């Protein structure tokens, strides 16, 4: 059966998995565990993402993200390989790394990691120098042109602290975004991370991201080199 399908609809050439990968980050040593009760993390099941951008817009509405900036977005690629063409959808957000390169570069100590692993910016201290923006290998930070401060995904800490879920998770139509506490042995993210081979973006940077991708094609782990859309976020920062 499977064979016949492969014959009539040319299968995607096998993707080599594993060899080129860095090992999964050492989650157990995350900063949160020693000090905090929780270690928040997200699993993104890429097979479930339908690229509807519900996460993108809900985040904008929840967090008053200024026009043409994004705390999260779903990059959507048309992939052409041999005779086969397909759609690849990749949700992106701050990875809330265990080893966040954005923190040490802050000259005023405004950006820091909470004990539960959430990387945040203290708006009272931030001077908007954007060193952190440049230091983030995931392009997950921007300067909010309304507040003049560094801005980024907080895992909706204000909601999580209130016992709620991040806005993007609540409204994920495909159910691709799964959020929870890695320190809770019964949490869904803990189970998924334990039972699956997770991938992270740019593992070679040693940042130890805490957004884990389930079923991610390794060729999307790094910077994706392709032609962009004709559109660029108009006026972002302008």
């Amino acid at each position: 059966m499977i064979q016949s399908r492969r014959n009539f609809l040319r299968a995607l050439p096998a993707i080599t998995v594993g060899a080129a990968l860095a090992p999964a980050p050492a989650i157990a040593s995350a900063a949160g565990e020693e000090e905090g009760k929780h270690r928040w993390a997200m699993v993104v099941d890429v097979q479930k993402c339908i690229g509807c951008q519900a996460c993108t817009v809900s985040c904008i509405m929840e967090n008053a993200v200024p026009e043409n900036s994004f705390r999260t977005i779903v990059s959507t690629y048309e992939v052409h390989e041999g005779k086969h063409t397909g759609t690849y959808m990749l949700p992106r957000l701050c990875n809330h790394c265990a080893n966040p390169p954005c923190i040490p570069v802050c000259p005023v100590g405004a950006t820091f990691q909470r004990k539960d692993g959430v990387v945040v910016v203290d708006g009272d201290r931030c001077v908007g120098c954007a060193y952190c923006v440049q230091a983030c290998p995931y392009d997950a930070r921007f300067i909010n042109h309304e507040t003049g401060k560094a801005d980024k995904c907080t895992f909706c800490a204000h909601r999580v602290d209130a016992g709620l879920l991040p806005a993007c998770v609540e409204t994920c139509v495909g159910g691709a975004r799964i959020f929870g506490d890695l320190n809770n042995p019964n949490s869904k993210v803990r189970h998924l991370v334990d039972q699956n081979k997770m991938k992270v973006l740019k593992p070679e940077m040693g940042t130890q991201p805490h957004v884990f991708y389930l079923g991610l094609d390794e060729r999307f782990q790094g910077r994706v080199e392709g032609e962009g859309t004709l559109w660029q976020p108009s006026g972002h920062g302008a």
Partner: protein
Amino acid sequence: MEDKRRSFLRKAAIGGGLTAFAAGFSTTAGRMLDHVLGKDQPKQRLNGNSLAPEFSVNPATGALSINPEQQVSYTMCTGCTTFCGVRVRIDKKTGKVLRVAGNPYSPMSADPPLPFQTPIRESFVSLTRYEEKGLAGRSTACGRGNAVLEQMDSPFRVLAPMKRVGPRGSSQWQPIEFDQLIKEIVEGGNLFGEGEVQGLRALRDLETPIDAQQPELGARVNQVGLMASTNEGRLAFVDRFIKQSYGSLNMVGHGSYCGGAYRSGSGAMFGDMKKMPHAKPDLENVEFCIFIGTAPGNAGNPFKRQGTLIAKARSGNKQFSYVVVDPVLTNADSLAAGDRSRWVPIKPGTDGALAMAMIRWIIEQERYDRHYLVQPNLKVAEASGEASWSNATHLVIVQPGHARDGRYLRGSDLGMVFPEEERYKDKDPFVVFDQVAKKLVVHTEARGVAELFFDGEAQVGADTLKLKSAMSLLREEALKHSLADYSAACGVPLEIIEGLAREFTSHGKRAAVNAHGGMMSGSGFYNAYAVVMLNTLIGNLNRQGGTLVSGGSFKDVGEGPRYNLENFAGEVKPSGIPIGRNVPYEKTSEFKRKKEGGKAYPAQAPWYPNAPGLASEWLTSAINGYPYPLKALILWSCNPLYGVPGLRAQIEKDLVDPKKLPLIVAVDPFINETSAFADYIVPDSLLYESWGWAGAWGGVAVKMSTARWPVVEPKAQKLPDGQAIGMETFFIALAKAMQLPGFGPTGLADNEGQPCSLERPEDWYLRGGANIAWQGKTPVPEASDEDIELSGVARIRPLLEKTLKPEEWRKVAFMLARGGRYQNYKEMFGLRLPPPADPKAHAAPAGAVLAKTSTSAGIKSLAAATVAGAAVHAVKEEAPYPSDWATHRYTKPMMLYNENVGTTKNSFTGKRFSGTPSWHEPAFADGTPVRKKYPEAEWPLQLISYKSPLQNSYSIGARRLRGIHPDNPVALHPDDAARLGLHSGDQVYLETPGGRAKATVILRHGVQRGVVAVEHGFGHRELGARAHRIGDKVQPHEPAIAAGINLNDMGLSDPTRNGRNVFVDPVAGTTVRQGLPARLVRA
């Protein structure tokens, strides 16, 4: 490795592009300056300007604390035609809608939904981190659903009535008092200084024929027409006004320029060309699914539910794979799902060739479900384990010259006696050839299987008739072209066609094919009929993992259990010929006259007896005056000039001329491309301000109704009595001014005939709610005080108590609090529903106990009628149906041959249409192929329309959607681009025989060669794209709203027709936007 990688990602990015997330640091230096210059300090130290949570939950105990400054209410989204149940979060102080997500009770938004009885408090907790309930129980809004709340505060909203002051379409308006508005529209007069205009009072002539020579057209009142869009829960109110109360026959929706071709094709198979039933795949259980002309998870209806289920299926442990057949690659495909998701490109408008090839292969290889197709009737089919049945074995008279050639042979042909008016109608049974008895029997009396491929002569009364079974006719049609010819026509390689057909027939009934709006081509009807026929060949209807019909909705209108929202004293029963000509040409005076003159065909313009109301033909008919002109047009939340391909170029100049259509009134919250030509615009309620009860369009196999109620105060201007001006207040005021029946202080009646008022919107919708509450075995429960408080229903509690009876209002509140009424989701399969309430048809002898057991498929069906009083409906205790049968089954036969289509003549050529699915190259009304008129040499490309998940025809005003997806560059395959020397970003003129537009090109491998793909939803001229002057104020405008192009501006007219017209499908009368001949010229 490097090389491979490069080719792997040569061309990329469909939306939310590569650069979007990388845009962060390019302007860092500028930012540093900004900081020095000073900005607004964020409200919170760590959380910036994020919203305060609507409530909080103790994650250990689940205890809920409400944020008293916010309200969360469950209502309906009208951001697209899915009409999902949503939860709306409101800032109580300002009334501003802060955010929208899903309603956890609604199967349109949650999978699975919460049980209907769940208290509101518990529903809030179900969305949170407590026990991680919010992950499994998440209820979502899509990207657009999250964004459309911006429209509430749009600067482009029409909030008060206005009247044009300049020429039509010149964007000059003045505000007008409501009373004056009603007076002018009702009484007419020299309203614009351009001469007398007849008002609605004078136009309501229920007696005088439009044309004494053509009495069949009906009375002059039919010259007032109302165009609506879709049933977002208020259509019945509009219907009551224009048809029953005012008396015009002419009201039409948007189906003929939406996905009508699919619905008509499906309607042919389901045997109902007016209501056009259709089925959707059971995505929770199907093993192999083919989507042709529809893109699950990318667009379509129900958008989120399909997206959720397809995502679950392709990532889950059950056997599942799917194929999307489409000229353009969309988000319906997922490379991450590997072999489970595949895209097969096809030439535009040729789906029928693919489907007929598959049908041919399936018949030749005998891969069809013989056991299903040989069943002669529902009873025998059920007894042998089939949950639905077909007319494959029914015999058709195939004898040219015979009076009933092309008709089904009926019982009366075999000598059964019927009153003349019942002869050849529903009660006159069909005839099959009984395989055991070896003779003709009427299908209702057949006890076993019937001959599937009958093709021969039989003695019928005194005649010897040539007869063929429907299956034989389908085979004959499928064999008209070779597989190679079909393959060449559709551009899908033969091995893929065979592979699809083999795979499709390898899963028993757990396979399905689905179509929708992509069927809008010049041969859309037959393409759709052929595609859906594949489902019948494997007999998957009503079966788990196959195709399911909608579970239907609880009816608010009609003669309900609490109120009569249907009939009233003095109601008019409109009659005549609809202006869209969806009736037989042969019944017109024109036909008789021309026949007497010796040449009955062609008609002056095509007629469509097998179509529903046709907005596609309406406005051109009105301008042409054929069958008659319109004197007044009311537009309610519709936009045909944007949506009907080719219409704008045809009638724009005519609409500007009031002599051609003297009065145009629009009821709309915005000025759109059509209402811009109105004489008056009346504001309407928008989104969460509005009332309505809507069902699921399809794809939800349990019964459900979604409630929409004003969870925020409407913004439009208020009347002295405090009501906001909107569609309902406008029609109520018109009715009052003209003293029309069915409105006013005694406009309605309860179920006992006691009069009650219809003077405010809630009079209608709350009483409709009471009807819904009382449906089924037991009425819904009463809302608790806490439900009412937490859900925000408290805000309208005074309205409920004032409008409804004491025993009613808490039940209606129970539903409003939950955003609707929903059948238990677990009842989707295996439930035996009570028979329809027709005592005559289902009376069982009193005291009789019937027991029947059929073991052929392990079914045990016990029917017992208890002793009951004569007037009391028999109470039945029956075993459930098999657990893989749909609870809501469609029980009429699937028609392999549709005799109504098969005996209809093309009103131009006089030639009969095919009654089975078939493959026809797209052609104009007189049969001339499109490619003959517009050959490839001159028009080498073909245009197609497609949708993204974000934009539709009226969403462009949402700023944050534009921020993600601001434009629609036209997509072209790199091979075609190379031939034309074009690169991504180049400016071109896109030309069709119907129009020309300047566009930007983007190169995509995800487009079929020879195709230019244009995304729907852009190229607006209104909705804020142009500034209007209202009174002495110039309204704002936003150039970004005008971005891109609208394919419909380049639609074709039919060169074989006279007068104004747009190119439509010859059977369904539906517009054509797939496969328009085109060319690109470098700009």
